[in-house]
């Protein structure tokens, strides 16, 4: 079954076409890697899939359901989660509070103005559990402002996973990390169960290639190559456009 189907998705900013008739068919449980040089339209494609941008044409289907005109928050309630290329967290709060906000986003409790958030023990337990998965439970109460860049990347992933998503969109999860941190995040992504479909944008081919089942190469907003790891890497267009050979 297809987890995500993108059909002829098109988007322009003024006269600049940043996404041109993009088609994707990501199967349930698949690990899809989206690559392409800077300005290829990878993050724009993510923003179109999550609903942060409205497409000019084309459609997006999540597990068979047309979500093209659906607001971002409703897509999240259908099982879509994402991380951001530029870390987008709540810097004034603790790591635990960041993950609690992710949990609360899918709970009816988020509308309740009359109970104390600090007394919702089930949220604390769930937040700690999500942080344990990414190896940050021991610093759960640390303010985010006092954490390293690598730890924040892991908080982003913890927030996405805390929502028990069916589809996770990871926008450059290795960006800005040291070699050791990359390996930590890589192990973390490998540990995500196969029920969860992953679509990932990544520049670091060394770390990301072997995580992918299939690879899509974008260039100037168009899909120019798509296929298996070996097939895409061996393709002359990949080498020309992305690897610079």
């Amino acid at each position, binding site marked *: 079954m297809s987890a995500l189907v993108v059909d002829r998705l098109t988007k322009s900013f003024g006269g600049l076409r940043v996404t041109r008739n993009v088609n994707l068919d990501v199967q349930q449980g698949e690990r899809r890697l989206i690559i392409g040089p800077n300005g290829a339209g990878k993050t724009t494609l993510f923003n179109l899939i999550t609903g942060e941008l409205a497409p000019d044409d084309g459609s997006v289907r999540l597990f068979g359901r047309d979500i093209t005109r659906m607001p971002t928050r409703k897509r*999240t309630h259908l099982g879509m989660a*994402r991380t951001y290329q530029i870390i987008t967290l*709540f810097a004034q709060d603790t790591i635990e509070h960041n993950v609690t906000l992710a949990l609360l986003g899918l709970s009816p409790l988020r*509308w*309740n*103005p009359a109970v104390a*958030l*600090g007394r919702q023990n089930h949220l604390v337990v769930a937040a700690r559990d999500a942080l344990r998965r990414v190896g940050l439970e021991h610093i759960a109460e640390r303010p985010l402002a006092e954490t390293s860049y690598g730890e924040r990347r892991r908080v982003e992933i913890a927030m996405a996973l805390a929502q028990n998503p069916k589809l996770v969109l990871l926008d450059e999860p290795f960006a800005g990390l040291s070699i050791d941190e990359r390996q930590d995040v890589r192990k973390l992504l490998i540990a995500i169960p196969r029920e969860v479909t992953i679509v990932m944008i990544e520049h670091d081919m060394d770390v990301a290639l072997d995580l992918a089942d299939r690879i899509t190469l974008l260039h100037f907003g168009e899909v120019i190559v798509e296929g298996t790891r070996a097939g895409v890497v061996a393709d002359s267009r990949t080498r020309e456009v992305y690897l610079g050979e």
Partner: protein
Amino acid sequence: MSKLVLARGLAALIAVIGLAVVPYAIGEVYYVNIASQVLLYAIFALGLNILVGYAGLVSLGHAGLFGIAAYVAAYLLVAGSGHVLAIAAALLASLLATAGFAALSLRSTGITFIMITLALGEIIWGLAYRWISLTNGDNGITVPARPAPFGIALGSARAFYVATLIVFLIAIVASGIFVRSPFGAALRGARDQPRRMSALGYHVWMIRFWAFMFSGLLSAIAGVLFVYYNQFISPQALALTASAESLLMVISGGAGTLLGPVVGAALVVIVKNVVSAYVERWNFMLGAIFVAIVVFMPEGLVPGIARLTGALWRSRGKANLPMTAGPQQ
């Protein structure tokens, strides 16, 4: 229970007792009335603080919401209605106006939000000023009498202060519960990272809308207290300067804190009413105080004093550390 929680509880208890004995301690009616003004404006500032401090939305039209409640109550009381009906209708009318304000102004944030709220506040002021058949224009409306809940007449300064204090305590406790709730956390999240909050499944617009409604409710309650306090309402109470003063209360005391708007309200009301009796250019003095706050404590008086106290405490702690042996020569 931690020491911090106990200390906070004790401080709150002392504060409540202190506020309760104010009319008996100061005695003079003029100053008891000033204390009542501080409390009713503190409720107004608490309401505005929900938007400014916790939602990150600066409103310059809240005096309109305050004034609608005051005018509706005054109009109905003059028309002969009972106090319960007048108060209920005043709150309802102000909440309806709040919903209208929110629906129009929440189309945007930042400077556009400020300008829309300013324009809406000016429309309400214009109606109060020019719709003379309804509002009596510049002459205003005089309210015949204060209510007597449970048979207790609020005609005296002391009785009115106690009634205002009870409403104030309910308002600050409600605000405290509100900001510490899951909804309060969502509101702060929508202030800091609205895009991320949408991606986490939150309806950012709706969160802001309900925060606006709570803010409007507190403003309306303050408006009703105002009209009972003065037993008079005129367009001056809805003017832009009233909105600006309430914003100054919030910012000077510390936006996004519970105590800040209360301290800010006390500062503005005392400078306006008490200092002005001794200093002719009190407006200049108020301005100078605000400039000093912005320069030395840009986060506001309450968080600023907390920061300085914390720094002092830490420096004293370091000074009291036992001397350690230096490196071996």
